[in-house]
């Protein structure tokens, strides 16, 4: 049996545990219902051709964001379960979750939120926005882009599968050894973690190759480095960080796999292994990871600040240099995650100071956003709410970060709820707010109609208030001595704070529900909020030059860029001269064809991954052979591109010019 099924037996299905069992049933039913619904409406061919196999960066970006939103719901479900447990299991009560189960939940929550919410969300925006802002038709490697997405999805699938078949890691989101070694975690939980992250990690590295190449080599004529929008700069920085940091994660997790699967001794207690080596390696990736997420978020804020203040971004160049400075310094601070290792006072001091130095370029950015708003005609739209909410929240979160960077202070609050409060404050206040702002800001570009403002503001207030209620008390609890990852709370006097935190989490939950409501409501009333001009916010960068949604080739002719703020300059000149750019000479356009190769790759990756997790070696080998065969098959095909005929390009472009001309007239009349 074990040759055929490896470690897989019927015991792997949680028949005796109601929570995962019911969840599995509900999720399976929902997936089946959606599948039937799509099928019955005849949407399957559209879905297959326009999304699943698409090489269009916009479609891929949307798929990333859908994945991120789905996983946000999963991650939030974990969060609310933890909060519920912590507000119940106080003193004599043990709550409703066993330690075994609770440990899986916080590990899954952290892993999912970072790798399958924040990462795909950020990468989704890069996909959707960067080629448009650079004024080009697609990324450098469109097919690889599709593969990257599907590998990420495969990782997400495996992590969620652990809920139904087997178990997840109980080791926390970074799976520190020796706890994560076979000796102390003999089950498949850690293997799920490792394999899922390895697969999605490959996708992420490919993404970074793609985007660094795109941003450095594929730009519209005249788009020199210092004319690129800040979001492109921060995306470049973020992708450089991925390129330099993710291979280290691959190695770290790979070494742990060798320990677990082949009895190597990298991080074990015996055989000369050294678990602190793991801490160093994983944080060499881990700290830059923070900025991989934060820098594009800062880019989104920059776009939002300029657009809704009606002014160019204040200190554009200082923003770029601050971004690059953060990019470099972020590789020099990893040790602040384990000051308690005992590296000695001098080393701790150096890393402490380096950590604080990052505060300087970040501070520069905050002032730049403030000065952008200063004296501008600020429109308090939903994205602007998030920007202001971010600045208020992030400054406090940054300050507690500086506190943590002081080694003696860190010795006191290390691994306490103070730390949990700090990183949620920067990641929710910094990254999640930006993602919600970007979602609202670029939604009309993606779908051709805006989202409802009132509901959007309600969502914002839910996140803002909910976040503060859910995490501010944790700073206090941290000082009281509450460590993180507690399944049971020994001190009854903490109860009121924990109940308040639960209440905050419920408010955030209301915000997530309202996001869905907002989406449905906006779809229903879309006729009243159509974006006919393609420029609903009076934007400044090139994505607002084209239609909403853009044709799949984005621009009929690549725009010629003159000066910073490519679109704004063009728009203002056109208004002044009451004339559009001379009609160019339209050419047929070559576009990459869609391809099933991404889905097939992900299929083999998932099968292979599953087989490795469960030690089903024949299946793993079969999967590898299959993957190689697909690779050769794909390489064998001659490159296909399909040609958009010049007539189609011309007709679309003329229609577009007519609309823009009307838009210009209305703009020049209003000024």
């Amino acid at each position, binding site marked *: 049996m074990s040759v055929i099924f490896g470690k897989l037996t019927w015991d792997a299905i949680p028949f005796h545990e109601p929570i995962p069992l019911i969840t599995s049933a509900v999720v399976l039913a929902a997936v089946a219902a959606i599948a039937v619904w799509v099928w019955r409406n005849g949407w399957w061919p559209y879905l297959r051709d326009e999304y699943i196999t698409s090489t269009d960066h916009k479609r891929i970006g949307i798929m990333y964001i859908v994945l991120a939103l789905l996983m946000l719901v999963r991650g939030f479900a974990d969060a609310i379960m933890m909060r519920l447990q912590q507000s119940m299991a106080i003193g004599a009560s043990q709550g409703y979750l066993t330690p075994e189960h609770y440990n899986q939940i916080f590990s899954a929550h952290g892993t999912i939120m970072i790798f399958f919410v924040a990462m795909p969300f950020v990468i989704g925006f890069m996909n959707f926005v960067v080629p448009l802002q650079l004024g080009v038709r697609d990324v450098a490697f469109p097919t690889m882009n599709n593969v990257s997405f599907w590998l990420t999805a495969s990782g997400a699938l495996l992590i969620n599968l652990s809920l139904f078949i087997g178990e997840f890691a109980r080791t926390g989101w970074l799976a520190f050894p020796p706890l994560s070694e076979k000796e102390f975690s003999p089950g498949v939980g850690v293997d799920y973690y490792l394999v899922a992250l390895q697969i999605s990690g490959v996708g992420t590295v490919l993404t*970074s*190759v793609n985007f660094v190449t795109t941003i450095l080599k594929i730009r519209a004529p005249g788009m020199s480095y210092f004319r690129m929008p800040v979001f492109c700069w921060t995306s470049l920085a973020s992708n450089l960080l991925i390129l330099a940091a993710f*291979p280290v994660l691959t190695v770290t997790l790979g070494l742990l796999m060798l320990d677990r699967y082949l009895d190597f*001794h990298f991080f074990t207690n015996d055989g*000369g292994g050294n678990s602190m080596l793991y801490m160093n390696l994983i944080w060499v990736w881990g700290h830059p990871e923070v900025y991989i997420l934060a820098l594009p978020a800062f880019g989104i804020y920059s776009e939002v600040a300029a657009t809704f203040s009606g002014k160019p971004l204040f200190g554009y160049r200082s923003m770029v240099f601050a971004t690059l400075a953060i990019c470099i310094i972020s590789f020099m601070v990893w040790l602040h995650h384990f000051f308690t290792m005992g590296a000695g006072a001098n080393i701790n001091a150096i890393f402490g100071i380096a950590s604080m130095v990052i505060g300087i370029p970040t501070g520069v950015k905050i002032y730049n956003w403030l000065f952008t708003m200063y004296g501008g005609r600020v429109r308090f739209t939903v994205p602007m709410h998030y920007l202001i909410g971010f600045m208020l929240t992030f400054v406090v979160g940054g300050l507690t970060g500086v506190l943590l960077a002081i080694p003696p202070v860190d010795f006191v609050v290390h691994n306490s709820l103070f730390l949990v409060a700090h990183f949620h404050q920067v990641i929710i206040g910094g990254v999640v707010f930006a993602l919600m702002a970007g979602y609202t800001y670029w939604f009309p570009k993606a779908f051709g109609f805006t989202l409802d403002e009132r509901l959007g503001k309600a969502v914002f207030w839910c996140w803002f208030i909910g976040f503060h209620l859910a995490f501010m008390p944790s700073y206090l609890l941290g000082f009281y001595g509450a460590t993180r990852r507690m399944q049971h709370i020994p001190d009854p006097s903490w109860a009121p704070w924990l109940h308040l935190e639960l209440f905050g989490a419920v408010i955030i939950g209301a915000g997530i529900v309202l996001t869905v409501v907002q989406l449905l409501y906006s779809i229903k009333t879309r006729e009243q909020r159509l974006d006919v001009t393609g420029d609903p916010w009076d934007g400044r960068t090139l994505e607002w030059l084209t239609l909403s949604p853009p044709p799949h080739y984005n621009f009929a002719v690549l725009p010629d860029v003159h000066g910073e703020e490519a679109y704004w300059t063009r728009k203002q000149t056109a208004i002044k001269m009451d004339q559009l750019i001379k009609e160019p000479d339209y050419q047929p356009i070559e576009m990459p064809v869609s391809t099933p190769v991404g889905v097939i790759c992900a299929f083999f990756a998932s099968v292979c991954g599953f087989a490795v997790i469960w030690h089903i070696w024949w299946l793993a080998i079969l999967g590898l052979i299959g993957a190689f065969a697909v690779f050769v098959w794909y390489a064998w095909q*001659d490159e296909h591109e399909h040609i958009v005929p010049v007539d189609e390009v011309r007709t679309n472009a003329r229609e577009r010019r007519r609309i823009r001309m009307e838009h210009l007239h209305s703009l020049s009349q209003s000024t």
Partner: protein
Amino acid sequence: MTTEAATIGLTHSGSEDTGLGHRGPESKSIVVPYGFWLFVLSDMVLFSALFATYASLVNATDGGPTTNQLFDRTLVAIETLALLLSSFTCGLAMIAAKRKNMNLTQIWLLVTGLLGAVFLFIEFYEFAHMIGEGAPPQRSAFLSSFFTLVGCHGAHVTAGLLWIGTMMAQIWAKGFKEHIVRRLLCLSIFWHALDIIWVAIFTIVYLIGTLP
């Protein structure tokens, strides 16, 4: 007036030269190798993490064999020679491909692959020998890191061999089409990169490890 007219494209044709040479997207013949270079760079980062691991565990022998007792300089010298030569023949294959000389390209690729196979064979022999002598990777943290670092390079060489085989078949079947030659260029970048990494392994692991 004129600058404004230029901004909306009324007065001039073509792109403004920004002094940085950004005249629109680069051609595929630049973009593809560039992207591949970036990939190779990330691979180099991967190896640097493995080197760091090796460096920090090299003395963690847990009472087991140490570098001096295990490594055989002559064997490694032959191995190195084979790999360096293969880089040279890979270069010859590229030159032949540039001249669209089918037979020479195939021959040099074949020689490159064979030299790679010799390298792998010696590595395999070394590994088997060590395991037979009671120095398997499970013996100590040092041996774990040694086998992983060198083995990871070996795995790359194996992948390279598969790639060489596929490339030979492709060139044979399709001739020197533009995208095939581009792939060949990527292959040669890959192969040379493996050489560079091997030089580092040779120095850091074997030379330093066999100092008296």
